[in-house]
């Protein structure tokens, strides 16, 4: 099945952001994931066609980056940081309890298609360790129980909101569309900064005291 003419028009607008069209491969791949849920064959073929490349050239790029998936993600894609700092502080325990709870392993999706899991590397939120990302939104200071509750709430259709992010968690496809550069208008939601980000500022305002 072909992409709709409206979708193809969006692809053209993505290409127009760059001085050279090939630079649009990455946002186009994010956009394909927003529509299809992963990098599909039709996605590869369409990108190759509109950028005048061989499909092998597009696949070479797609297979290099871990965010591009070769099979569908769950509606809620849960990444548990297992890089050293988060792992030591409890990321390993969170990951183990989550796999037990869901009965799936790394890169797998629950049978209902709701939740997939991934062991992720450092996500630049170490002052909120242990960190879990859902659809690449921040869930700070997690515990094994809080993450079990989080995935249960997602499977029940009412996911808990991110700690620093929009007031309602969007789906994996919807967030992939944001990464393709399509503004969803939610930038104003959520805090300016979390409490750890503000710690030094507040100590400074208190004359060096906490």
């Amino acid at each position, binding site marked *: 099945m072909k992409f709709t003419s409206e979708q193809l028009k969006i692809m053209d607008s993505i290409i127009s*952001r*760059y001085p*050279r069209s*090939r*630079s*649009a491969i*990455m946002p186009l791949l*994010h956009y394909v994931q927003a529509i299809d849920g992963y990098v599909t064959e039709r996605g590869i073929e369409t990108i190759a066609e509109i950028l005048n490349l061989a499909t092998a050239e597009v696949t*070479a790029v797609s297979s*290099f*980056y*871990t*965010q*591009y998936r070769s099979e569908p993600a769950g509606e809620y894609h849960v990444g548990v940081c*297992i*890089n*050293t*700092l988060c792992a*030591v*502080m*409890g990321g*390993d*325990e969170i990951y183990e*309890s989550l796999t037990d709870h869901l009965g799936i392993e790394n890169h797998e999706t629950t049978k209902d298609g709701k939740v997939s899991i991934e062991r992720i*590397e*450092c*996500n*630049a*939120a*170490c*002052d909120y*360790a*242990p960190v879990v990302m859902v*659809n*690449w*939104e921040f869930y700070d200071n997690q515990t094994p129980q809080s993450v079990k509750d989080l995935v249960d709430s997602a499977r029940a259709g009412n996911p808990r909101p991110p700690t*620093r*992010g*929009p007031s309602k968690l969007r789906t994996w496809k919807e*967030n992939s569309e*944001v*990464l*393709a*550069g399509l*503004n*969803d208008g939610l*930038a*104003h939601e*959520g805090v*300016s*900064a979390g409490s*750890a*980000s*503000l*710690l*030094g*500022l507040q*100590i*400074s305002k208190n004359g060096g005291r*906490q």
Partner: protein
Amino acid sequence: MTKLTPVLSAHWDEKDSFTIEGYKRVGGYKAVTKALTMEPDAVIQMIKDSGLRGRGGAGFPTGSKWGFIPQGDNKEHYLVVNADESEPGTCKDMPLLMANPHVLIEGIIIGSYAIRANHAFIYLRGEVVHVFRRVQQAIEDAYKAGLLGKNIGGKGYDLELTLHAGAGAYICGEETALLDSLEGFRGQPRLRPPFPAIAGLYAKPTVVNNVESIASVPAIINNGIEWFQEMGTEKSKGFTLYSLSGHVNNPGQFEAPLGITLREILELAGGIREGHQLKFWTPGGSSTPLFTDQHLDIPLDYEGVSAAGSMLGTKALQIFDETTCVVRAVLRWSEFYKHESCGKCTPCREGTWWLVQMLHDLEAGKGTEADLAKLLDLCDNIAGRSFCALADGAVAPIISSLKYFRDEYLEHQRNGGCPFDRVASTIFKTVGV
């Protein structure tokens, strides 16, 4: 006692700090107005004279980088901001962009004007959707306000700014891999020379700067060189963000003059968590050799950290207490480098796999003393033998941990496995919380 100096973080506690109104209310975009009345070369000279050095890890003088761009060459020039923040432990640019994306945009306009670029890019890691939203909205609002696009501020200067999401590859934080990625290829480092200043994006003269470096520019333009140089040490001028994480009572961001010590930061942050002691720490991410409690008073500036055998790096202070097994920590970092090696250079691609295999055995108590020599020999054949610094980073935790904790490796062998209680190093104390 060194005092904190919130500049970049000064207004993060305002509810609308990330909006254009919020930024303008605290003096935002005044530096652009000033810079656009200066000659571009004068802007470059001012940043050179300020002593601002790259905040992304290498510490290269920002103004000098700008000065390397050949002028009058009739070629397009590009400014590319490295917002791929992925070095383990590093968490300063993402909160900065979430709380104040406009200070980066203001710095980009000034930097692009100085190097005569009419198109700039922000390469933002893809795994931070809400940060992406904030930056994207800020760019749209800056366009609407006439701060981007044609004839900025009525001064005849044009600038396009494109936000680009990465897709999960640590290597794209390396500037030439980032450029390949931005051109639409696999993100693999390039052989240098030519350097990006001569042949960067699309083989055109290009400056690649870290988020924090560029975001520091407006404050320097507004407040002047003397103000900037009052902070910091002889060769490491100014303020910077230190990110404290791990086994401390209060992790967080601390903006301070370069040269503050970990002892001072820990004192401000309420110290190591109750009942525990500092064991080892990284001064600037996992690629910077480990320090121990002997290094609490090292000035955290480029020279001080380097003289003590490590690197200032990204100023990511990851703190581990005595409950942490150093072999486990190093193995996990090694698995990271193995996963993130781009595969271009054989010593890194193959060597990181060997490192992980050996460390696995050592952690499981199956190693021997001879293996430690073999491990170091392997490191010797990886570091400095690849295109980029990923390989050097991969061996840094191994070599430094063997220097300070050699016996802990052997203890695993004597014990027939890891002697540490893993749960003790978590923050929940008991499993199932």
